[in-house]
């Protein structure tokens, strides 16, 4: 097990360098001089330009720039600073990431709370009106583009009815409820259908027939026997959704003005604030790599076949 853990950990090193190098190159090869972008249509004074170039190594070849940057990360946990405001990228990330996590977490929670009961009810009433109508409703919700759905929710529940904050995060967790709900109802359809299908399949299993045969109540069959197994693929999908949302829910963060990581990256592109884009992306790469590592090690722990491969 230890050997596998070491091998698996060493594997993430080249992946880290390749991924960050690609991000770095793509960002710094975007057309447009990053120093000029800070000054708009005004000429950059010569001395100021020289200062920027020296401080950020901007006139060095790209591989030198990359090395300066990555060695800062590896040796000093320094993810660079914003060209625009000179704020450390680490601070920007630590500020914005919890907001994205809150939004994504709440969205997945709402999705689970809606999709699982709908899927279960649909499976148990297979072919009946609830099954059919829930199919229609969830497909309709799925087919509405998220930005339309979010803007409508904002207008109706925020501006008109004033039940929720229209934008911003000044009301704590309450600020995240409406946008998270918006994400949840647009992504709910697939999860609800998956729950339904998975439960129908599980009901066909022998052990369910055994449970029924020994006289267990229908409620007990569902909650103790069927649901547990049927939930496995659903939870996997919810986990994947959470992962995707953590990368930044750009549209939602934009409409509801939630300054999460997607919001920071999007804002930094036109101003060519390269270190913010690269820095935040790099931290996200690290987060993904670590999560994958942990998951793989857990699998190996659970299933001995994996670690001997």
């Amino acid at each position, binding site marked *: 097990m230890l050997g596998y853990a070491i091998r698996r950990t060493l594997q993430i090193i080249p992946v880290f360098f390749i991924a960050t190098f690609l991000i770095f190159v793509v960002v710094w090869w*975007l*057309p*447009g*001089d*990053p120093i*000029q*972008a*800070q*000054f*708009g*249509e*005004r*000429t950059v*004074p010569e*001395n*100021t330009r*020289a*200062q*920027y170039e020296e*401080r950020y190594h901007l006139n060095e070849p790209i591989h030198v720039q990359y090395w300066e940057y990555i060695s800062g990360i590896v040796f000093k946990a320094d993810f660079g600073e914003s060209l*625009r*405001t*000179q*704020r450390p990228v680490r601070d*920007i990330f630590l*500020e*914005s990431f919890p907001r994205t996590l809150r939004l994504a977490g709440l969205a997945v929670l709402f999705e689970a709370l809606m999709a699982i009961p709908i899927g279960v009810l649909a499976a148990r009433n297979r072919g009946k009106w609830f099954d059919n109508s829930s199919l229609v409703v969830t497909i309709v919700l799925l087919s509405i583009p998220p930005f339309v759905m979010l803007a409508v929710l*904002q*207008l109706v529940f*925020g*501006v008109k009815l*004033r039940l929720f*904050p*229209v*934008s*911003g*995060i*000044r009301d704590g967790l309450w600020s995240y409820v409406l946008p998270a709900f918006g994400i949840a109802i647009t992504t709910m359809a697939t999860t609800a259908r998956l729950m339904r299908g998975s439960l129908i399949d599980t009901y066909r299993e022998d052990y369910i027939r055994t449970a029924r045969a020994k006289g267990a109540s229908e409620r007990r069959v569902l909650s103790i026997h069927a649901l547990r197994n049927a939930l496995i693929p659903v939870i996997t999908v919810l986990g994947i959704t959470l992962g995707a949302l953590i990368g930044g829910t750009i549209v939602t963060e*934009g*409409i*509801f*003005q939630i*300054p999460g990581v997607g*919001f920071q990256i999007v*804002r930094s592109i*036109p*101003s*060519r604030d390269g270190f913010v884009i690269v820095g935040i992306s790099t931290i996200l790469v690290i987060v993904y790599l670590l999560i994958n590592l942990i998951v793989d090690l857990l699998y190996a722990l659970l299933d001995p076949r994996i670690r001997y491969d």
Partner: protein
Amino acid sequence: MTTKSTLRLCAAALALALVAAACGSDGGSGGDAGGEVTYGIVEPTWIDSFNVQDSEGFEVARLLYDGLTDLNSDLEAVPAVAESWETDDNTVWTFTLRDDVKFHDGTAVTAQSFITAFNYVANPENLSDVTYYGSYITGISGWGDVESGDATEVAGAVAIDDTTLEITLDGPYPLLPKAMAHPVFSPRAAGDIDPDAPIGNGPYMMDGSWQHDVQIRVLRNDDYYGDKGLPDAITFRIFDSIETMFLEVAAGGLDVADVPPEQIGSARAEYGDKFIELDIGSYNYLGFPTTVAPFDNPDIRRALSMAIDRETIVDQIFEGSRAAANGFAPPLAPGATGGCENTEHNPEMAKELFDAAGGIDGSFSVYFNSGGGHEDWIEAVANQWEQTLGITDLEFVGQEFAPYLDVLQADGGIDGPYRLGWLWDLPSAENFLSPLFLSESGDNFSLYNNPDFDAAIDEFKGAESETDGFGALEDAQNILCEDMPVAPMFFGTAQKVVSDNVSNVTYTVFGYTELENVTVNQ
């Protein structure tokens, strides 16, 4: 709060025909003190005076800081920290400071506080993006040496004593007192200052730190030496999208917000007298590459300008929310002349000039930055060129702003007409002329070079006072009108909406809200 008694006093005062300005409980500007104003801005780049550079930063910094001077509504410099100033030659200036001005931390503001600020701004290690105010715009002696790292102290700024500051310039500049109203010349407290919680000397002070992307809150400074602000607190809520900011006013989450360009028409109808429109010191132009054929021929440039029907574009595309440009500086800028004939729509004359000059052979490109709302009007201009002059062979080159700036800066300059704008640094027509058209200026993207124009600007700078130099500025604008290195297009306006929660919302000539004078309805 003193609301009720103040109201009664006010009514009595008005009945007695006394001056309404005495009615604020703190001697403010006529409203009732108290309450909190919530104001929408985009995330500023900086709010610390040494690097304030965008309008949202100015909105905050003008409350946190007071410089030597301030500008009144007639765009004249008036005393702030300096109670008076004098000069014999517009080169050596002596400012006499008040002795009762304090920073928010209680320490005194002295002449040395300004020198600390100047040295800090000019120091290249601090990466100020606005250090050019000290060198390029005002020409304070020795500022450039600090910028280049050859000195650590600006030689041209000397504290004679605590209340006497002497500033020496490289050459005469009659606008120095106006320039000193810019936040970059604000005094700086001693020691390290947290850029997220700057210590200023203005009518409001920070309440905690700047919460990036969320809000900045400031509280009234009750130890302020001048007229105290009316609202107890002002919260700047930060938005990245003007659309959302605008929605928040309707939802009761904001008291004042900008209006997105596409909503100006509906906002004007919906908000009535709560819709505010004001002229600001900015303009848009179409520049010509004056060294590239056929644009090197002034007749071609005049014809292209005269073929544009600016009024129609303003009405149809901007719903009247801009002003058609009639000169090289907006009318509110002191010294602006306007009335340039070559900016008037004159299709017959345009066609005549165009044909006599041999027209344009082959195709050319028109450059602009995409995403800034310029596509529609540039296309309208091209249509008018086609209808009036028969130009059909042109290509639109729209680019994101950052790569667009590279094209403008390319060696040898750009090779076709290009869209650009200018927002003034200080309220004078000169600031629209020198940066864009002086032969040596880095912002002169049309590569215009006319020694007569340069001489006229020199004459202005050598004039005894700003108004004495107006003649020279008029000459300079006449030369530009004759040469048409650019076709001026529109002068800027700003649109805001305010909630029912506040009244007496007024603006400076820069378009900044005078939040210190806003009355909160209670």
